[in-house]
């Protein structure tokens, strides 16, 4: 390959560094430093020293952001710029991306001690005591990391949160024992039945039962003793059994053994921890008695056993929680709760209605998982169920209050379905309305075309807008329309790969053929299942899983591979056997 003049000079200056250990790094030097070096480096990004450190393996955490962008741009194949005549081949890109990705500096794995998210907390107390808790009202929000609220890297226990958790525990204890607006709690009903069946049943046994459920493993009798002693001490000798139980429930739910998911350091070797992970992933709550029993019997200790259990759990209606919590966040629908379409123009889109729309979409995801249908079906939809890009929830969440936003829709397709987040807009970027005069009466599309005629904007928007423009026939709340402003709708679009399409049907069909959708699903699912930002080793597992999935692989197949992955299950892969291919040849 031809070297440009500045690079030749650089090579001289850089005599010691030109001999790269392998091809990827050399390619980056050849292909990137021509522009990205020196005081007048393109985009103000002088990569010389960064690349030198990458080569030496001395990139630091401080370099992480800059180097991530290098990896991202290479992964997106949009550097070197698409206008360049001598573009790297796909093989070259793979070599460069692979080399760059393995040099990304990693922080040491964060603490694995995870606390329950507010949603998990509410699901747990509901499962154990039958008490309904509105988590979003009662507890402060969890911080989101890499798209999910269960990211352990972001978790803290603020004084406010701890205080709210105690309030919640007291509230739950009261509701469990004394009943709430819905009458007696299921737990109280069962307690009464247990006492009727066996009048001598002791308080101690009941506390043991509570501790086992709340602490997600067999209880130790001395724990129950301690708790009862403390209750007696606090409440005095006149306290009734029910007073004592209220205290025990409050204490059990405030204990770190409930609030944190205690796991031994990797490699995981504890079947109860595995049961807990599985249960929080699939049901959003702690394991029930049957699952704890399966763990005790060793049924989660083999890949076959784990897979069978997971499949049975997915078939259980409780798995809807996973579709809701994972789906809402993967599909970025949670923002719909805060997003209010202009009520004058779009009546009937209040918070409750928007909540229902979210559930329609996550319900569809649930069906896809349970029936093990291919992800392509989720994207393409069926005659009686619009595909993801035609779901009202998605269309609304990616619009402005008053109008559509092809940019937001395009960005959504890139981030959610193709897992290729576009680079962020540069500072001081002119907004769509920049050219103030003469945009009146123009369609969103026409205004955007003006915007894109600015070469500064064109490069990025070309990778995003096509998807959004193809969706223009559906307005800011997902209603079909024929006109936008004074203009008839034009929903033709050119996609970044050069394909020209028209309308949402053709877009959905195109998307449903993209293998990237499967990768995106698995990558997001892995992040959610592990509950942390993915490290390099995790990315490698994602790659391995995706490589083993064929075009007809179903959504459940993807989920099962995540469950079986060593990072999640703590079980090693069967020795010597190549990754099994699922759903036809890749």
């Amino acid at each position, binding site marked *: 390959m031809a070297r440009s003049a500045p690079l030749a000079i650089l090579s001289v200056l850089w005599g010691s560094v030109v001999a790269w250990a392998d091809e990827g790094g050399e390619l980056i030097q050849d292909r990137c430093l021509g522009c990205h070096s020196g005081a007048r480096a393109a985009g103000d990004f002088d990569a010389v020293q960064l690349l030198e450190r990458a080569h030496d393996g001395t990139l630091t955490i401080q370099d992480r952001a800059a180097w991530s962008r290098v990896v991202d741009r290479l992964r997106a194949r949009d550097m070197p710029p698409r206008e360049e005549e001598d573009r790297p081949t796909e093989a070259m890109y793979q070599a460069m991306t692979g080399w760059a990705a393995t040099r990304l500096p990693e922080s040491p794995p964060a603490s694995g001690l995870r606390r329950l998210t507010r949603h998990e907390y509410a699901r747990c107390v509901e499962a154990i005591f039958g008490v309904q808790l509105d988590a979003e009202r009662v507890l402060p929000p969890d911080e*989101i990391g*890499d798209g999910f609220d269960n990211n352990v890297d972001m978790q803290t226990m603020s004084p406010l949160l*701890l205080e709210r958790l105690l309030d919640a525990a*007291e509230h739950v204890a009261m509701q469990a024992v004394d009943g709430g607006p819905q009458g007696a709690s299921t737990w109280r009903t069962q307690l009464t039945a247990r006492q009727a069946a066996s009048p001598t049943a002791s308080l101690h046994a009941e506390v043991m039962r509570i501790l086992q459920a709340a602490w997600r493993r067999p209880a130790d009798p001395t724990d129950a003793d301690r708790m009862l002693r403390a209750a007696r001490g606090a409440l005095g000798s006149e306290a009734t059994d029910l007073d004592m139980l209220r205290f025990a429930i409050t204490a059990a739910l405030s204990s770190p053994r409930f609030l944190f998911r205690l796991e031994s350091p990797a490699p995981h070797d504890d079947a109860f921890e595995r049961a807990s992970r599985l249960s929080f992933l699939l049901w959003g709550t702690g394991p029930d008695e049957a699952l704890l029993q399966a763990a005790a019997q060793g049924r989660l200790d083999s890949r076959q056993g784990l897979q069978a259990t997971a499949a049975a759990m997915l078939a259980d209606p409780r798995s809807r929680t996973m579709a809701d919590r994972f789906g809402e966040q993967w599909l970025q629908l949670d923002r719909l709760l805060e997003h209010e379409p202009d009520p004058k123009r779009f009546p009937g889109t209040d918070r409750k209605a928007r909540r229902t729309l979210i559930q329609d979409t996550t319900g569809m995801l649930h069906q896809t998982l349970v029936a093990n249908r291919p992800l392509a079906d989720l994207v393409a939809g069926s005659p009686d169920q619009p595909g993801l890009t035609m779901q009202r929830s998605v269309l609304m969440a990616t619009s402005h*209050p008053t109008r559509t936003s092809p940019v937001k829709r395009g960005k959504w397709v890139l981030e959610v379905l193709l897992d290729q987040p576009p680079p962020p807009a540069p*500072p001081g970027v002119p*907004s769509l*309305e920049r050219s103030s005069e003469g945009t009146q009466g123009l369609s969103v599309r026409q205004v955007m075309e003006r915007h894109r005629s600015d070469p500064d904007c064109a490069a990025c928007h070309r990778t995003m807008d096509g998807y959004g423009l193809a969706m223009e026939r559906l307005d800011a709340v997902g209603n079909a329309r024929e006109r936008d402003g004074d203009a008839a709708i034009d929903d033709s679009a050119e996609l970044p790969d050069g394909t020209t399409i028209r309308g949402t049907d053709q877009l959905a069909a195109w998307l449903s053929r993209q293998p990237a959708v499967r990768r995106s699903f698995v990558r997001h699912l892995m992040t959610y299942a592990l509950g*942390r930002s993915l490290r390099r080793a995790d990315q490698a597992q994602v790659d391995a899983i995706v490589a083993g999935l064929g075009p007809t692989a179903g959504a459940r197949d993807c989920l099962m591979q995540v469950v079986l992955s060593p990072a999640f299950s703590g079980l090693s892969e069967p020795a010597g056997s190549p990754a099994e291919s699922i759903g036809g040849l890749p």
Partner: protein
Amino acid sequence: MNDLPKFHRRTLLKGLGAGVALPWLESLTPAVRAATALAEPPTRLAFVFLPNGVHAPDWLPDPAAGRHALSPLLEPLTPFRRDITVISGLAHHNARALGDGPGDHARSGACFLTGVHPTKTSGADFRAGVSVDQVAAGTIGSRTMLPSLELGMEGGGRSGNCDSGYACAYSGNISWRAPDKPTSKETRPRAVFERLFGDQRDPKAAAQRRATRRSVLDLCMDEARAIHGSLARADAERLQDYLQGVRDLEHRLERYERIDAAAREPVPEPPESPATYHEHFDLMADLMVAAFRTDRTRIVTFMMGNEGSNRAYREIGIRDGHHHLTHHGDNPEMIEQVRQINLYHARLFAGFLERLSAAREGDGSLLDRSMIVLGGGISDGNRHNHEQLPVVLAGRGGGLSPGGNLVLPAETPMCNLHLDLLARIGVQADRFGDSTGRIGGV
């Protein structure tokens, strides 16, 4: 659009369920002073955060216009022009890209009170710095029931990232108790009320509840200690957070017993869901004043919106999102809407100052004992610049002597103001963030 709702004290008192002036406004001061045996009433500190910058040309003071001339967008503060200093020239260098590319909103939020350049990440390695309010709380917070109070108008949490690869926690929090620990904020007035005054309804039951809670906390402490030993180091550190929280709560229960009965005088209960942004703000303002007044805390941070907020202020006739509008590209209609939002925020802030000045304490008002900062980490929302930050300093607490417009040399670190406020509230520090010394002239 020009017909904005006027600030009406009556209406919001009705919102609080009281038709007359709040009871604690008249009667509390002598009791509080006696109970806490203070020679001087304490100094209070509050930071009120403006998201998305402002329309700077009409917000920043015009040096030619005279020392007491308010800029057009600060006109609502006219009644308090002798109680405020409008500062220009402050900058947050660490909110700039510094090689990290876009993400000015996230950096504005994370840097505003920390002065630290946050790590660009959407998850792992998440890090900013300890904020000025938390530094103050670390020293003087133990004197009150709550070391500090964190409030906001919008909840956090949203999937995807909030700003160009930055985790949402950066734009949703201005208060940080550790570099990797934002202090979560409360957005529901009723929840704030419960936290501050919830025990007032049935004092006897409340006392029993506190006693039981202490036993529960003792048990929790034992549990945590038992587990602590078996954990890996990083996990044990995380459990420390829990242990610290338990200790804080125990401390609070103890302090509560010592609060004088007069300081527990009933505070009206706010409604569960405020109907409008205006009412929501006013309820929060009432609660902040009540918290100061009863000395539940002396330090408050309050976000009028999360940084980058795209709220549509429909109650003043604005249908598009705030953030969207700030990128007006010189479109006069959009600029006008941004101005209206800025004016609206100034008017609400004036309502907060009015409450503080109406609350008598000793021979002055609560405003005389307070240092209130109104400001943001972005100057002009359209330009995303971090110099010429919009900052108003109100009150005479800590010896402040408000004096109209104060023009500082360009690029004076915002942290110089933070360092000065720390000194005034009794925290001796040589440096804070990128400070170069205490600000002069306030």
